[in-house]
């Protein structure tokens, strides 16, 4: 997998610390001028740096929530209704950025996906590149999803098809339904276990960031891509089973 490591954590946590306030000319903080308190124009920051966080995956969600509420109050466009027109606009932009950043970072999966994007991991690109490489070298491409999971997904899809066909014909096969329910339960269990596994990868990533270890970082990213792939497979499957069973 090719990951661009040139734009990783070396970027400053918040690039706006050296800018000066548009209103009073003093140096300003992230979202407001610390001297006069005016709302500042949003800078092209990422969601982590928007909250002044390092690009790490273990996030104190309670603190994030506190920061979110505090910032939403201060940045609320209504509060700045009587402000300078530019400031009103910035307040609106900052508010919407704030909402996006919060919604993304508070959710463990969205946070992970966002980090992968920041790190330049494009799943589809990756798959295409791997296929081209396999074609050039004559080797068989390593599947992103482990073969046994693929096998299970395939088998379950076969059963689902049978169930749908039965339904169409007005037939009912209790044994098949029971089998599907059992499979679904297994997949749901797997799905839950992924959350724990993901935390392990987060820790690996965070430690690699602390140690500035490129190999470790790449390894952690790979593992997370792998996990998210398995996760979306399982999620789709459980959804399909539920649909077919009419749950």
């Amino acid at each position, binding site marked *: 997998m090719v990951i661009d490591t040139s734009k990783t954590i070396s970027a400053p946590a918040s690039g706006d610390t050296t800018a000066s306030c548009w209103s009073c000319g003093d140096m300003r903080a992230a979202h407001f001028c610390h001297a006069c308190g005016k709302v500042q124009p949003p800078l092209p920051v990422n969601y982590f740096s928007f909250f002044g966080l390092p690009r790490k995956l273990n996030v104190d969600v309670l603190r994030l929530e506190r920061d979110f509420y505090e910032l939403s109050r201060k940045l609320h466009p209504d509060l700045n209704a009587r402000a300078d027109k530019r400031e009103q606009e910035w307040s609106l932009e900052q508010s919407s950025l704030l909402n996006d950043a919060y919604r993304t970072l508070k959710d463990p999966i969205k946070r992970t996906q966002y980090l992968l994007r920041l790190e330049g991991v494009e*799943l*589809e690109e990756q*798959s*295409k590149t791997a*296929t081209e490489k*396999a*074609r050039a070298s*004559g080797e*068989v*491409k390593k*599947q*992103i*999803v482990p*073969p046994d999971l*693929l*096998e299970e*997904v*395939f088998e379950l*899809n*076969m059963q689902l*098809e049978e169930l749908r066909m039965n339904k169409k014909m007005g037939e009912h096969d209790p044994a098949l339904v029971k089998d599907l329910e059992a499979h679904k339960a297994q997949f749901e269990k797997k799905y839950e276990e992924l959350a724990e596994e993901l935390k392990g990868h987060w820790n690996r990533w965070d430690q690699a960031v602390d140690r500035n270890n490129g190999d470790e970082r790449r390894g952690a990213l790979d593992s997370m891509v792998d996990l*998210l*792939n*398995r996760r*979306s*497979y399982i999620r*789709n*499957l459980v959804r399909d089973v539920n649909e077919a069973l009419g749950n």
Partner: protein
Amino acid sequence: MAYSDKVLDHYSNPRNVGSMDKSSNEVGTGLVGAPECGDVMKLQIKVNPQTNIIEDAKFKTFGCGSAIASSSLATEWVKGKTVDEALQIKNTEIVKELALPPVKIHCSVLAEDAIRAAIHDWKAKQGAAKPVAVETK
């Protein structure tokens, strides 16, 4: 998004749907998946051991219309080719033939992967059966 006529044709009349005996020495099986959309594709080839020509191909795909069309087309294309010729099939050719839009390119990638995986499986079987004899170059 509208599917092209060719995709619709393969989708409503898929060619070579089915399966072959996975354990047969003449059969190679490729099972691949695209986790982004949850697709899974199985493609099987039956190869004549004397000529290395793919005499039959079957597929079964769970996925969108483009994935089904890509694998259906792939089975049509590999039939009658030698395994080495089949290895030359590129996903871009599938894209072109089916007029797949950019968001569906991964379906063609999947089909190429499936062909390669099936051939790899078949080659591995030949290697296990007679270690030196089949070097398909």
